[in-house]
Each structure stands twice: as C-alpha cells, then as structure tokens.
C-alpha cells in the first residue's frame, strides 16, 4: 500500500524535451491510467517511475522516500511489458520465479510465492510449459504473475493488452479490474486507448505534448474537461467543435450566433453564469449525443446541415454532416434510424454545450 508523488518532474534527451512540469499524486491502492496519443510521453513517464529512464529534473517520492536515484530493482515496483518479456528458455514457473532466483531465495519460498500467484491467475496447470506453448492471453497472465510474485508496492503496466485481439482485450480488462480489487495494490497503467482508460481507471491522467492535460475520474474528464484536447480525446465519436460569436452576455446566460456560418439565424442561448464580456469569439464543444437530427426539418429550429455519411449501428445512428461554413458536425439519433434526407436540420442541446476560448482552454461558469 503505497502512494507516489511526482513533483516538477521533467525529462529531456539532450536538448530535446520529452516531458515537462509533471506534478502528480497517486494515492495508495489507486488504479491510475496514463492516456494520450503516441509520442505524448506517457511511456517515458512510466519508465521514469520504474527507474529504467533517468529523471532529468524534479522529484519522485514513493511512500515519502525520494526514489530519483534508487536502482530500479530496489524501488519496490514491478512492470508488465507490452511484449510480455517472457524468457523463451525458461518455463512458466522459472519465468515467474526469476526475481526470486536472482535474489537467491530458497526453493521453498520460490515455490510458495509462484504457486500463490499462479492460483490467483489460474496458471497452476501451465507452470511447466514454456512461453512458446502458451496463447497470447496466457502469456499476458504469466507476465502479470511474474510481477505479482515480487509483491511490489506499485504495479506498472506498459500497454499490456495491445498485442491481444479485441475479444481477449475485453476479457483481460475485466480480469485486471478483479485483480486490482483483490490485491488492492497501486497500479499505473499506460495506454493510448481511451476506452481502456475509461473502463479501468480510478483516475485518468491525460498527457499530450509532454505535459499533463488533466487528471481526474473518468466521468469527470468526460463531463467536465479542462481543455479542447481532453474533450476531444475522451469519448467516441469525438466531440464536435463549432466556432461562434458571443452576441449577448447576461448574468446567467450568453447568446451566441454565427454557428456553422449561419449569420441570419437567431442566437443560441447557453446557460453560463459570470461570462467575461470582453471575450467575443469562442468555440462550442458539443458531444454527438447532444446533437440530434430534427424529425421535421421544414419546421424545426436549428442548424442547417448537409448529411455526408450515416453510420448505422442499429441502436444508435451517427450522422456526419457538414455545415454552411464547412465545419463538420456529428449528430446521433438514439433508437431512431435516419430518414435518408440530405438537407437536414441539427438541433443542439444548448444546456450541454461546453465553452472554450480560442486557445482551447475551457471557460467554466461561475459557481452558484
């Protein structure tokens, strides 16, 4: 049971900065997921925690002990690699007992610890096999077992499911959640897959361009993103962004116009307390689920849009449209199929729209 604090950490290769100004608190027993596009530095951050990469600046504490220069093996962390890193010349048992062998632990201790881990992961019948004789999911479990045997303070996972097929991934996800509940250990997990992040995490850390964009619980990130990047990264299909002009600012709402280039239409009223009246240009973030195709375009009020693509998933229909000014907007109809119309009108749930400034930072209403 261990907590991890990272303060002002940075990483650079020579003059090339990889990570900058990383501040993070991970509580004991938490399941934290680092998510971001490839090259965002999430794996580097994980490797810095593991000790496989040096930390260029800042401080890293595990249970209040600075671990910046502690040898990777002595930090009390275990890592599960993307490629599993199982040794083909060793049996499953020997792979799982590798750390104990290196520490010259007595055979009885090796047997006991490996067998306990194998039981948790249902690997007992495979202990004499070699990695080449295992399926992808089994190899994955052996790699996790190898980590469990070490009884680490923190588990690190580096995209552990990316080599598995889709079905197995879902299954392993469920197993990881169970494992976390059972071990109550601190786990840090790196992935580029936001679905994995949403389903696994107690806390998600979104990284982009070597910086932390936002830290929070999965649904908080979904509902209340700090910036355009987080808003766009979390959720599929991605959030729509429409540029707009602020026409009128009132105490508890604003009126915006010019959505989709439609200058003639009456403004859209968005609930917003305490808007800074000096801001004239904004971007509206609208999730596809908050945009719907009007049933009767002739009489409906909304944005005129032209349908370019319809994705029918049965229960859910995503309609891709293009607006008059060329901006794209994806709308969703729940439980209703698309009529086939090309010229249509999209209705926006104005109370659900998020407001961003032109730099992409979220503008939040003043708290009541």
């Amino acid at each position: 049971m261990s907590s991890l604090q990272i303060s002002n950490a940075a990483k650079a290769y020579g003059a090339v900065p990889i990570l900058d100004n990383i501040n993070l608190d991970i509580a004991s027993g938490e399941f934290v997921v680092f998510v971001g596009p490839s090259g965002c530095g999430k794996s580097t951050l994980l490797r810095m925690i593991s000790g496989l990469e040096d930390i260029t600046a800042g401080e890293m504490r595990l249970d209040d002990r600075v671990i910046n220069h502690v040898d990777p093996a002595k930090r009390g962390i275990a890592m599960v690699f993307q490629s599993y890193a199982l040794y083909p010349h060793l049996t499953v048992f020997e792979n799982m007992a590798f750390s104990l062998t290196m520490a010259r632990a007595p055979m009885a201790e090796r047997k006991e610890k490996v067998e306990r881990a194998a039981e948790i992961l249902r690997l007992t019948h495979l202990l004499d096999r070699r990695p080449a004789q295992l399926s992808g999911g089994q190899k994955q479990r052996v790699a996790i077992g190898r980590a469990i045997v070490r009884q680490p303070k923190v588990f690190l996972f580096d995209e552990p499911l990316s080599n598995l097929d889709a079905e197995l991934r879902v299954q392993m996800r469920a197993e990881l959640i169970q494992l976390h509940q059972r071990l109550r250990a601190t786990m840090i997990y790196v992935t580029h897959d936001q679905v994995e992040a949403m389903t696994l995490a107690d806390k998600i850390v979104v990284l982009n361009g070597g910086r932390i964009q936002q830290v929070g619980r999965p649904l908080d990130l979904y509902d209340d993103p700090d910036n355009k990047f987080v808003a766009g990264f979390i959720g599929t299909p991605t959030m729509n962004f429409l540029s707009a002009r602020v026409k009128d600012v009132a105490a508890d709402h604003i009126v915006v116009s010019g959505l989709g280039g439609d200058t003639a239409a009456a403004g859209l009223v968005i609930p917003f307390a305490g808007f800074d009246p000096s801001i004239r240009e904004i971007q509206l973030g609208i999730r596809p689920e908050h945009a719907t195709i009007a049933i009767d375009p002739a009489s409906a009020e909304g944005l005129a849009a032209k349908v370019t693509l319809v994705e029918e998933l049965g229960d859910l229909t995503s309609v891709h449209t293009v607006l008059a000014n060329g901006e794209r907007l994806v709308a969703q109809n729940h439980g209703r199929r698309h009529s086939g119309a090309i010229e249509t009108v999209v209705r926006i749930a104005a109370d659900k729209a998020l407001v961003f400034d032109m730099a992409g930072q979220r503008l939040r209403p003043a708290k009541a």
Partner: protein
Amino acid sequence: MSTTVTPAATLSSASASIASRRSVSIATILKWLVAICVAIVAVFPIWWMFNVVFSHPGVPISINPRLYPTSLSAGLNNILTIFTETDYLRAYYVSVMYTLLTIIGILLFSSMAAFEFAQFQFPGKNLLFGIVMISLMVPKAVTIIPTYLLTVQLGWLNTMQGLVVPGLASAFGLFMLIQFMKSIPAEMIEAARLDGANHFQIYWHVAIPLSKNALITLAILTFMSTWGNYIWPLIVAPSPTMYTVGQVVGLFNAPYSHTTVDIVMTANLLAAVPPLIFFLIFQRQIVEGIAHSGTKG
C-alpha cells in the same frame, strides 16, 4: 530446413511442359549423372583414405587401387601402431585442448563484449566498435610475424597459452554475435533489471540463453578453423612435445620421413574424424552459419 520448390526445379518443370517428354528425361538423367560424379569427386579422396587404412598393406596399389576396404584388422593395426609407436596420441591431446580452450575463450570473451556492443550505450562505444570492425579488413599476413615475436617475448613458445591466447581476439566472432544479440528485445533486458538481476546476471541468465543458436554456430566454425589451423601451431609450437595433429601430418609428409602411406593415411583419417563427426551432427548449423555470414556480411 524446409523443402521449398527451388527456382531451378521450376525451370526443369517449365521445360517439361514445353519440350517433349524424351528431352526432359535426357536433361534429368544428365543432371543426376553430373551430380553423382561431382559427389564422387568430392567424397572419394576421403573414401580412398579410409580404404588405404583398412586394407592389406602388402598389396601394391597397381593391383589393388584401394577402391574399397579389404581388411578391418589391418586398419585397427594401423591405428594401434600410430598410437603406440609415434607421438600421435600426444599430438591429438594437444589439438583437442587447443581447440577446446580456443572455443571456450572465444565464446566467453566475444559474447561478453558483443552483449555490451549490441545492447547498451556507453562513452567510447562507437570508437571501440569502429576499431574492432576495421580489423576485420586486416589480413592475417601482417600480424602473424609480430604476434609470433610477441609470443616469444612473453616466453610462451611451446606452451598451450601461446597456442590459444593470441587467437582469442577474434573480431569475426564478435561481429557475428553482435549481429545476433542486436535482435534481443530491450524489454527482455529491462525486465531482468527490474527483477533485480545485476549486469552480469543479465548477461548470463538472459543474453547467453537467448543467443544459444548463434553461440553454437560460432563454436562450430571456431572448431573447424582451429582444428584445421596449421600455420600458427607450426611456428609457435615447434617442439615435438607441443605438436598438433596438423604438424604431425605435415611431418609425415616431409620427403625423408620414411613413413609408409598406410601410416600417413591413418594419421589423416584420425585427424578427419572429429570434424566429420561434428559435421554429421551439426550440419544444419554449419551450413546456415556460413550462408548467414556470407549473405549478411
């Protein structure tokens, strides 16, 4: 090795579909004939050597050209004679030790260095690597005499270390192992590091087992070149007590040695036995090892 449909096989089947049946069979017969003849030329000298050893010594070669063995007891007698009446057994021992120690030394030292060059970055790496690689271009002719003189200065003439040690700086083995060890995934090394393995343990418990095939190939190639090395033992171990098998055979060869052909051939046959056995066991590794160094080199 898998049996793939080879290009030339498709060639002959191509001509089969185009040309008449008869011409095909002539081409095929010709092909087999040539292959068998070449095989005979390749294998016959060794077969003949065997026959010389295992035949009645009295019969002149004009009457019995030794095309097949005729006497088992004569052969055994020859082997017994060479072991009891000459220093061949000692030479055999020297050759075996020379070969064995060279293989162990080369495998150990080049794998240690290859592990570092293939998997890690450290100051001076590129310089060291460059020097070693350039040495692959330097012919043996330029180093053999100064190396000999150095061995003399060290007082290693006619010693086992004089035979073995100078040959351990094999850039070829290092290069081959580096090429192989580069393919070991970095995650395997990192996982071991996290599991508390120290640097040497990573080398010994991870890199060495993962390079098993390359090490076997290098061991075999080293075996062949060391067992067959003639020039170095000749100059560095000129004393009869340190003769290798090759030197004894060369000595039997000398014009006034008065050694009879059956004794010379027995010496030859016994010298051929270890490489032949090795070849029969490790055929695939030998052939693939040579092919690999040729196509990748």
